[in-house]
């Protein structure tokens, strides 16, 4: 079936620095979403992309359907950015999502 390979599985960042998370897809995906799981276990929507790039504050995401990947960049990391980040992508119009296994991000002071 469809697979989403998310990397890295864990990431430590010093406050004020930045890094990137990446998801590779085994097939052509129609759209991608990025989520952050907060301390209470809720999935917070970060981005929905059908193509191109989007930016929101210190987060920026890109999606290339043809090259089968998506990235999430964090810049100027803050302590509240800590959490588990998931990418998820779908092929069809049903909205079914295949999830990556998550990236555990820890921001340290």
């Amino acid at each position, binding site marked *: *079936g469809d697979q*989403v390979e*998310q990397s890295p599985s864990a990431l430590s960042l010093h406050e004020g620095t930045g890094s990137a998370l990446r998801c590779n897809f085994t097939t052509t995906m*129609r*759209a991608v*979403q990025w*989520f952050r799981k907060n301390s*209470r*276990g*809720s*999935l917070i*929507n970060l981005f*929905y992309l059908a193509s191109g790039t989007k930016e929101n504050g210190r987060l920026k995401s890109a999606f290339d359907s043809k090259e089968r990947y998506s990235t999430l960049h964090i810049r100027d990391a803050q302590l509240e950015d800590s959490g588990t980040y*998931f990418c*998820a992508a*779908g092929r*069809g*119009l*049903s*909205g*079914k*999502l295949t*999830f*990556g*296994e*998550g990236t555990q991000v820890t921001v340290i002071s």
Partner: protein
Amino acid sequence: GGIITQTPKFLIGQEGQKLTLKCQQNFNHDTMYWYRQDSGKGLRLIYYSITENDLQKGDLSEGYDASREKKSSFSLTVTSAQKNEMAVFLCASSIGGEEVFFGKGTRLTVV
């Protein structure tokens, strides 16, 4: 905006018990989903429904039933709870293939 409400938040069941989880959404979305999350893993799709009374199996449907009683509600039944099972069940909704929104989850523990 809207909200997805899942009940109960916590569910403790006994081995072999039939357990039902409920989900309501007020987005007026046509499609609803049930996902399961195991510790340290991504979410896996159990069932989804594209309209009232529709049901489609996901990758993990064995051991579960679902029911889309009306557009705003989608329930999931664990047909026979497995001992030591622990997982979070997440309900979600969307308009077709557009952005998917999730509820806060039901945490299941089977003793």
